[in-house]
């Protein structure tokens, strides 16, 4: 076998050996890399290091936790769950019939008190529970292309069963998400005066500019036999339909809030708020709760004590270990 080809796989390295090539030594060239002697940092877990790491973690985490808790405490939140309250007593055993009926009066009023002063901006959320916006069928049931550009109007393949009208016209926006658009409305009066709930800038700017076309107008929407939720003003392009855009950013969890609007005025403590709720949205069939939430925001966002508690716990645990190891190191060295 000639040397070059004997190489196939096994013979490769010895192929060129032979007395004639004895001169060219095959001694591997020395390099720090090939001899695995690259300079390296070799940390070792010494008690000093470990105790410092734990102490440091504790010292960092506990203040963060406290700050988070404080921030969360400062958030003023006014939740008002209305799904049961807004059912007339005669329908209390048959909420579904009430909500489905086109003849019943859906308006419902209530009053509640501001417990603490709320500084603007005050966010108005609606909170739904047991509503799986993250359901696989639901999440997929939309057409990104159709929402973005007019030319892709016909692109409704993923939208079934809300893709087309029975006569074959494409529905814009198609799909279950849009179809099930939340349609309860809220009005808030303070001392008999309507409080302005701003619906501007409640959606992500990025969605408005890139995901929802400014030349795409609703078409054949909620025109079928089954009405899922809100209707859209056909003269406003999708990029202007902020409620829809908010709704279509599907929530990660089955209990979620969505921004309804913002109140740009402060609310004083002990002020009486009267709510006028159009209770249209059917969550009764699957036992979902509906809550209206007024909330201020701090750097931590809405009210949530968990993060603060978690940080304090982790920090505390770290400190505990730091102390433990210190004691072990001092009193029971190995």
């Amino acid at each position, binding site marked *: 076998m000639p040397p070059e080809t004997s190489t196939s796989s096994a013979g490769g390295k010895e192929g060129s050996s*032979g007395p004639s090539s004895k001169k060219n030594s095959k001694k*591997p060239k020395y390099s720090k890399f090939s001899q695995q002697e690259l300079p390296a940092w070799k940390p070792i877990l010494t008690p000093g290091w470990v105790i410092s790491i734990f102490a440091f973690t504790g010292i960092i985490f506990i203040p963060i936790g406290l700050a988070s808790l404080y921030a969360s405490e400062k958030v003023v939140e006014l939740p008002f769950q209305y799904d049961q309250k807004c059912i007339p007593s005669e329908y209390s055993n048959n909420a579904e019939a009430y909500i489905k009926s086109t003849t019943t009066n859906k308006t419902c009023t209530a009053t509640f008190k501001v417990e603490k002063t709320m500084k603007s901006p005050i966010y108005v959320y609606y909170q739904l529970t047991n509503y799986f*916006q993250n*359901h696989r069928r*639901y999440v997929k049931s939309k057409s990104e292309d159709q929402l973005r550009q007019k030319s892709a109007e016909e692109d409704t393949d993923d939208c079934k069963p809300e893709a087309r009208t029975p006569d074959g016209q494409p529905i814009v926006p198609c799909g*279950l998400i849009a179809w*099930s658009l939340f349609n309860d409305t809220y009005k808030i009066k303070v001392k008999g005066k309507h409080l302005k709930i701003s619906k501007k800038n409640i959606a992500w700017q*990025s969605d408005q500019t890139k995901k929802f076309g400014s030349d795409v107008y609703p078409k054949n929407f909620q025109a079928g036999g089954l009405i899922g939720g809100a209707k859209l003003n056909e003269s406003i392009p999708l990029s202007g339909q902020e409620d829809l855009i908010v709704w279509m950013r599907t929530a990660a969890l089955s209990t979620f809030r969505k921004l309804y609007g913002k109140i740009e005025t402060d609310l004083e403590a002990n002020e009486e708020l009267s709510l006028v709720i159009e209770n249209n949205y059917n969550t009764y069939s699957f036992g979902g709760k509906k809550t209206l939430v007024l909330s201020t925001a701090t750097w931590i*966002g809405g009210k*949530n004590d968990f993060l603060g508690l978690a940080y304090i716990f982790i920090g505390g645990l770290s400190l505990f270990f730091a102390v433990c190891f210190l004691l072990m190191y001092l009193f029971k060295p190995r």
Partner: protein
Amino acid sequence: MELDNPVGNSENFEPAVNSSSVRSAMSIQSRGSSRNSTREVNFGPPAADSEALSTSQKEISDGDARLVHINDPVKTNERVRLSGNSIRTAKYSIITFLPKNLFEQFHRVAYIYFLIIAILNQLPQIAVFGIGVSFLPLTFVLVVSAVKDAYEDWRRHQSDKIENNRLASVMVDSRFQKKKYKDIRVGEIVKIHANETIPCDMVLLSTSDPTGVAFVQTTNLDGESNLKTRYAKSETLSLFPEKESINGFIKCEKPNRNIYGFQGSMEIDGKRSSLGPSNIVLRGCEIKNTNWAIGVAVYCGQETKAMLNSSGAPSKRSRLETRMNKEIILISCFLVTLCTVISVCTAIWLKRYKDDLNLLPYYRKLDVSSGKAKSYKYSGWGLEILIAFLMSVIVFQVMIPISLYISMELVRIGQAYFMTRDTKLYDEASNSRFQCKSLNINEDLGQIKYIFSDKTGTLTENKMEFQCASIWGVDYGSQNADLGNEPVSVDGNILRPKVKVKVDPELLQLTRGGLKNKEGKHVCEFFLVLAACNTIVPLLVDTSDPEVKLIDYQGESPDERALAYGAAAYGFTLLERTSGYIVIDIQGERQKFKVLGLHEFDSDRKRMSVILEFPDNSVKVFVKGADTSMFSVIDKSLSMDIIRATETHLHNYSSLGLRTLVIGVRELNPLEFEQWHFAFEEASNALIGRAALLRKVSSSVENNLCILGASAIEDKLQQGVPESIESLRTAGIKVWVLTGDKQETAISIAYSSKLLTGDMAQIVINSNNRESCRGHLHDALVKSDKLMAMPGGANNIGGSTEPVATQIALIIDGTSLVYILESENSELEEQFFQLACKCSVVLCCRVAPLQKAGIVSLVKKRTSDMTLAIGDGANDVSMIQMADVGVGISGQEGRQAVMASDYAMGQFRFIVPLLLVHGHWNYQRLGYMVLYNLYRNAIIVLVLFWYDLFTAFTLTTAITEWSSLLYSVVYTAFPTIIVGILDKDLSKRTLLKHPQLYGAGQRNEAYNEHLFWFTMADTLWQSIVVFFVPLFAYWGSTIDISSIGDLWTLSVVILVNLHLAMDVIRWAWVTHAAIWGSVIATFISVMIIDAIPTFPGYWAIFHVAGTRVFWLCLLGSIVGALLPRFVIKFVHQYYCPNDIQISREVEKKSVNTTRVVGGGQLEMLPIR
């Protein structure tokens, strides 16, 4: 003519086998080898033992024959188109690359699994990922492997091209013309000049030598660097194809891969003669010391023996991988459990909301778009459950770590790179690097418990040196010897043997004295036998001094070379050998002896003989052979006392570790000679059963010999062997030596190599029948129990000072092993194994090659410990292939062992750095890597799974589909590969200084069930923290799927990279780059994915990263997840550290202290 060329007719010319069988002359028990030959052991090259050859001498039937018309390629190729001479080592062409490569890659079960998953995903009912995405991981690994294969194949194409376009002189129109290799066809006549490579397998017609001898070097074929002789048939010697057309044909066997066998016949002008392996020269060999040779191409291209032999060693699978496959089955079960949970939950959920499904806003089964009420995408309760199950398999597919297979491959390539590049494993003497022939078992090197070592050429150098002789009952030792090499002057040139040999002055005096006295006569005859009775070819090598030339003895057996050099040192210099005569310079006087016949060595007779006609026309038979075979053919009546004395000397020599041969001579009277000559001629010309016939003929002259004496050759220990064995033993590795040598030789070598020490108790088992063997074994067991119970000599293994039981050495011979290995699972085998386990050293003497394999398989069968076999000769091939790891030593005996081995190196002592350093590292690295890979894939799957519990079990993934598939191939793959290649737990120096550290591998410390379950528990905890911290932090908030998905993606990636970072021991810049680079790459990837407007998660990362909660969640979940691991790691390392951790601290401290002392001190601690 016939008489002049007897060797040319000798049919059992078996180049490579010969060398090993010369050795086995002194060793192999005929009973042992024949009884055991039924045992199935896979030899690399076909076992070319003389018996096999003789059966192959049957007439070839026409159907199995190839008919080659000399110098008539057209006619030759008429009936069947025979393969042309172009060769192809490349596997693929451009067209076949894709299908063939894919086909080969899909031999892996894991790939098929992923293919099935990807195909499942194409069903609209259960599609989870987009079409492109679902094929992504599989495509990635396929492409990586394909690119690697394509590159290798391209290089093969290049070398094929060069090879095929080389030029050779080929006879065209009665003239030799240059022709490309690839155009040579069977039947053509090719002329080769000195130092040229032979382009195809050819039958020699004539050579520049008048007797038709050609010398070939077969380095490229079997690695042997010595010259071999090939002969042209006498019938064709005088033919000159340039002048007259040759009319004839050759009938030979179909192409096969036996490089030591060839048979056929040639008919020229109606005269028929037989062809054997000595008449053919093979492609790839080189012609040396012969001006030219002419031959007929009989096998071309792919059909040449060289090409038919170019296949690699059988692949083995490593222990760690076997174990890993078990865990992967466990993980598969876990995967099935997860999927079952999902489908059961789906079932319950669907049942519960059965009535609402039609109008549930997020389900909406009812489809009225066509005017009529239909069900949309709902296949009934039962089917929906099945679909849920299948979908969850798709979503959780990364649980089976596809990337692990590819990373393991890459890591092993990296490890192999470092092993071959290690300057400590480079052998200066043979200019050979360490070679990794098998890439699959690198980590097994770190777990070896048993080493089975050959002796000759492995523990010893196999550079034989003539040491002393017993001649006519007198022992001429070489106590006060000085180096001598007698220069001989010939034609004004001074010739000097290449190798200097120690000579005994007394003996030298005797040889100088010549034939004056009886003593001198015997001495002279003795050395004459040494110089003549061999197959050595002397070559003259030029030196810097034009007057002086060196005589280089070329021969297949190192023993013969040593004897020839020895004879030369005493003034009997072999100067010339042709097939017809030899020229020996006897004390300055040139004498020519006619060689009348030569009976080559074979392993049954274990001797060889040559029949010489002296200048005074007397005819003598010279015989040399192993003592056992020689004493049976010596005429005992002649000189009993001399035989006795010789026997005693033989015993002394072998207990000094010397290899012995007995020399005999006999004068033939004319009648005897005639009888023999007739029989010899007949046998040499026989077409059938030539070997057997020749053997029979030999027995007619190899009898009633007069003993001359015995020679003793020293086989020096290789450098560093005692130290290596010491290290290996400290490392807890049991070293068994399996040798073909005599017991005394073996024991003495064992002593000098520190295998046996004075304070060991020896148990010797030599039995001649099964019953005594049984008895011996039983007694030995009882004895060993007693010895074990009683404290013996100091033992410092592990540095313990407690009294340790006496170490026992077991010495057993081949005959006893025959009975032990006779039947599988016999009681004897069990007893032997129990006994051997108690012994720290086992020495098996006089074992046949197949017995070596039998012993290895016996141990392999009965323990789960890893075995390694190391050897250098053809007789070690079976053992090397049988053991878990086979190591070949590229030494004096050719490359058969190397070819069959998994790793090849130049010296025995390299086994220490190989096992203790590289093996240790490989094992630690790969063990950690497997665990880590299982962890990193499981954690992402668990995070996906937890999320599914919050999506009504519908397998929505918050982590984008791209991220979840890029995760295992891009986000987290590089660091583990880099760490798997580069991380070192301890420095070379420490590992070599404390061989005990090797025990970590033997005890499976880097990868075991404990660690697996611990890792899995840790994975569970980490996945819970990393999933639920964001979940609770964002519960009831406005967070959308994509944002929280990005958070999970990033925190899991950072977490697994930090987890790895925590376990990295040495941080070189590459490690930093890989780990932190991966984290940064992940951030970039997530940002890129979120910058594509058509993806649902458009801009999510930029929104969510603007909130503080995001960063708090990231930090909190990672710290919380790693906390328990960190605590346990520290407590374990600090309060119950294992050897490795202790050594690491010592290492660190020692470096620190030297730093304090000063820079100069650092040089005292070179990292070896």
